């Protein structure tokens, strides 16, 4: 049986793993390569790295760091942030990453999703999205896509965007709830369920994980294929093994041998 994936997310700033709430008040947590090895050895099913300042600083992603990670871990990992050209994306895959993730770039130029899919292979293309709750009738799903670290509203409906991204060639969608991000109060189950049941490609829930119960809920109630964890593991509140033990006890299939 296919297992539900647990994916620690490492936000990178100045080559340090960092964590903020709603992209603010960031504190440094450690070295990305060391943390990658620790999570990989500790039972994480996949990792995701976001270079959170590359885009704002208009610089390329730290490819040397990706290369170092690729040498030492042998589970899939995705890289995002500051990827603007297919060449950048090739470099990331060539450094050992499994997937590249785009977010604001795809909103600005949706055709990049198709170009990536054809050039890199669909399964390597992750669309990240940052939806926020809205009562704007232009967004019938009740969620609007934001970009640039939640700063810009686009008027785009989250569910429609997810379906369009699937059609254009995305291989997987990471749904990061703006409302839940960094709160540790649980995933946005309505939003996650809406997208997970609305598209035929895997959906990764993101934002709000604070306890193993939150992961159980997002898998059992919102049908996520995978879930991103950050603070709850970065701050040492839980290990991946502890999370998996609780998931397993609740009947959620998780990888047990690592």
């Amino acid at each position, binding site marked *: *049986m*296919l*297992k*539900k*994936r647990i994916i620690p997310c490492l936000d990178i700033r100045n080559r340090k793993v960092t964590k903020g709430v709603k992209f603010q008040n960031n504190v440094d947590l450690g070295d990305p390569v060391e943390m990658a090895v620790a999570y*990989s050895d500790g039972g994480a*099913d996949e990792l995701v790295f976001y270079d959170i300042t590359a885009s704002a600083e208009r610089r390329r992603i730290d490819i040397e760091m990706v290369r170092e990670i*690729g*040498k*030492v871990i*042998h*589970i*899939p990992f995705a890289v995002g942030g500051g990827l603007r050209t297919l060449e950048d994306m090739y470099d990331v*895959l*060539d*450094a*050992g990453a*499994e997937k590249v993730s785009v977010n604001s770039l795809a909103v600005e130029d949706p055709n990049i999703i198709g170009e990536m899919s054809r050039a890199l*292979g669909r*399964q*390597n293309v992750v669309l990240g999205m940052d939806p926020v709750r809205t009562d704007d009738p232009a967004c019938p799903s009740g969620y609007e896509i934001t970009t640039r670290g939640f700063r810009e509203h686009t008027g785009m409906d989250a569910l429609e965007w997810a379906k369009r991204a699937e059609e254009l060639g995305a*291989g*997987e969608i990471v749904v990061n709830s703006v409302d839940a991000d960094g709160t540790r109060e649980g995933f946005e189950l309505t939003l996650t369920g809406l997208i*997970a*049941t609305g598209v*035929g*490609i*895997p959906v990764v829930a993101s934002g709000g994980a604070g306890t193993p119960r939150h992961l159980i809920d997002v898998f059992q109630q919102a*049908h996520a*294929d*995978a879930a991103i964890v950050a603070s709850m593991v970065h701050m040492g509140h839980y290990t991946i093994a502890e999370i998996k033990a609780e998931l397993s006890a609740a009947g959620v299939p998780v*990888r*047990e*041998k*690592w």
Partner: protein
Amino acid sequence: MIAIVDYHAGNLVSVQLALSYLGVPSVITRDPEVVAKADRVIFPGVGAAGAAMRHLAELHLAEPLRQALADRKPFLGICLGTQVIFAHSAEDGGVDCLRILPGDVRRFQSADPLCKIPEMGWNTVEIRRRHPLLEGIEDATEFYFVHSYYPVPADDALIIGTTGYAGVQFASVVGRDNLVAVQFHPERSGRYGLQLLRNFAEWEGVC
């Protein structure tokens, strides 16, 4: 030296990174002569079967692959490489493949919209018979899969391990003689994937 065969079928660097981590020398090559000189061959790949068969023809790689098998070199297929070893694939409207093993490759069909295609993630391999490649790997160990199609060997004796997805229990490890082929990605499958690659690097091609 292990030749990792490059036929424009996706990114192969992760295979080489895993071997380097194990201290096993390898070369990514599309040169038939390099394949001919290698001690062992890894035939990986992601992507579509139609393009893969076209590229193998253009690069004149099908013959060296057959020769490596005939020469009893240990040979490992991975993912798409495994699929095109069979006679036929349903992908791209139907593609004749290398016909090294009897059988065909079919697409997952799922009536359940929550059963996503491709299968992406970790799934267990149920070991049907022991094989040197699986030394040190317990039954029901999880490996990392990304695929929409799966092999259906015509001969059950080829099946070494199976995996369940979308209502089928498909052959995820197959082989005979010096050939072994897996549907998952050992290079992405953590410690047990590395174990499998280490086993391959030490295997003499006899089982």
